[in-house]
């Protein structure tokens, strides 16, 4: 039997460095994979990386200022619709145009939803993010001439760059890889900055943060908007990759799936949610090719994590590392 996790003074530093090494290793492996892999697996990895960016954005929110949103699909889907509408309705699939439109739209949406929802805390925050996101969903479903309604918005092509370069599945894979890595390192930078430490403090003890002079709501809003913007970029990539945006991309089950990714991967880290995205993809989409009971398996795995490994995969990796370290190091 091993005793409970107590990341001590010495052990505490190590997993961090190990985590960074793991990320760099994974990025390297992903960068060379297309030269060996099948078209299908390249597609799968593209999809997982897009979802990983989405999970990362929610993981940032849940792990640092500890804001648990059940409406994150609004930003992902909002970004996807913005990119899709630009690409299909305006027939301009320029990467910068679609990406920037998705980013701007998701950011504005996040400002609006954030201002309204951050008046509440805890379970009320969770519920009002859900309600406001569902309003976005209803709009997506009803505003047929713009969004395609329940049929979705179909025919979104891969992006292109000012007419001299058109992405195909191979180059799009690298674009997604680049943005996934970029999003990770950007948020990693943010979590280590003074701002990131304020968020961590808010997540740990908001009352004290206010007592020492932090107007916590502004910081939470900034984090919320940053997270929403990242989710919006993921959504734009999703639209290009699938060629379709539909109301399900804004609906609450997607928000719940992102939440599962974060919990399974491990809130409180940035690598964790990204790993969680991969695991949940295999449990959900991957397993559904082999069994009709994939939802049940996902529920069971989720419960196991809640029960026995609240730190998620990242937590397991960390404690295994500490055990290894304890055995060899001291």
């Amino acid at each position: 039997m091993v005793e409970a996790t107590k990341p001590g003074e010495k052990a505490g530093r190590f997993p961090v460095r190990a985590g960074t090494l793991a990320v760099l290793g994974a990025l390297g492996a992903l960068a060379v994979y297309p030269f060996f892999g099948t078209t299908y697996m390249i597609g799968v990895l593209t999809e997982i990386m897009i979802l990983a960016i989405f999970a990362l954005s929610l993981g940032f929110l849940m792990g640092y200022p500890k804001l648990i949103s059940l409406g994150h699909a609004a930003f992902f889907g909002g970004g996807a619709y913005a990119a899709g509408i630009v690409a299909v309705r305006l027939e301009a699939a320029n990467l910068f145009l679609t990406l920037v439109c998705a980013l701007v739209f998701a950011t504005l949406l996040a400002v609006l939803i954030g201002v309204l929802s951050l008046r509440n805390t805890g379970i009320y925050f969770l519920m009002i993010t859900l309600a406001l996101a569902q309003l976005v969903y209803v709009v997506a479903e009803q505003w047929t001439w713009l969004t395609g309604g329940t049929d979705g918005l179909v025919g979104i092509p891969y992006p292109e760059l000012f007419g001299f370069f058109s992405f195909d599945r191979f180059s799009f894979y690298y674009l997604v890889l680049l943005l996934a890595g970029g999003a990770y390192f950007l948020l990693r930078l943010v979590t280590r900055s003074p701002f990131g430490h304020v968020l961590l403090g808010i997540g740990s003890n908001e009352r004290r943060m206010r007592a020492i002079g932090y107007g916590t709501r502004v910081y939470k809003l900034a984090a919320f908007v940053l997270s929403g913007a990242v989710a919006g970029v993921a959504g734009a990539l999703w639209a290009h990759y699938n060629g379709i945006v539909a109301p399900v991309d804004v609906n609450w089950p997607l928000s719940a799936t992102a939440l599962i990714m974060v919990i399974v991967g491990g809130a409180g880290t940035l690598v964790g949610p990204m790993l969680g995205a991969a695991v949940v993809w295999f449990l959900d989409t991957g397993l559904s090719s082999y069994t009709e009971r994939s939802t049940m398996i996902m529920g069971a795995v989720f419960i196991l994590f809640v029960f026995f490994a609240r730190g998620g995969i990242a937590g397991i990796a960390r404690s295994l590392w500490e055990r290894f370290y304890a055995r060899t190091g001291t």
Partner: protein
Amino acid sequence: MPALELESVCKRFGALSAIDGVSFAVEPGERVALVGPNGAGKTTLFNLISGELPPDSGTVRLGGRDVTRHTPEKMAREGLGRTFQRNSLFMESTVYENVRLAVQARAGVSFQMLRPITAYSRLGEETERVLELVRLSGRAGVRASELSYGEQRQLELGIALATGPRVLLLDEPTAGMSAQETGEMVAMLKELPGEITLLIVEHDMDVVGALARRILVLNFGRLIADGPLEEVRRNEEVLAAYLGVGEEVRDA
């Protein structure tokens, strides 16, 4: 001009009058103790001053400025610091990070997102200065949750000090401490820069005697005495209020 001034401050919870027309003023650099039986309203009064609760009526002034109904964060920025009766720390962070976060609060860099916090060296210098003040320099890398209780009280004080307050509210700084820990805490508080105004809630009359010359006595939300320790001790009303816990006062 008084550093802190209360004028007829009232707060009711339903039918209960928690604070009933309390008025007093504290001069800059003065050290004042606030005592009273359990449930007298001491912590409520602190919450009213620090902005965690809005008063129903009355005025709170800090350095002559009306700060009634300011939010806690605004009060902190006006130069008011406070500690909590029950430790309110950032438990998963190290001692160093706890204090640095408080230092950062007035450093104007909190919206910097793209450089690591370690790049801001003046945060580090100031943090180390405060750690020395509360005698935790040797424990800087330890997580707050792994400190001894006494050390956590020291850190509680350290966080409040790190915001550079002009007025500091201390809510039972020695509560639950051993005799030795209490002695250290008193020594630490005595060494605080003279310009910091202190208002201390304290049960231990030795501590009160060591730190403050002036005492405010609160009972059922009303201020029943205000004056030097010896004088207050002889006050009939105070004795009556402390009946049952009166030994504490007399022993002191």
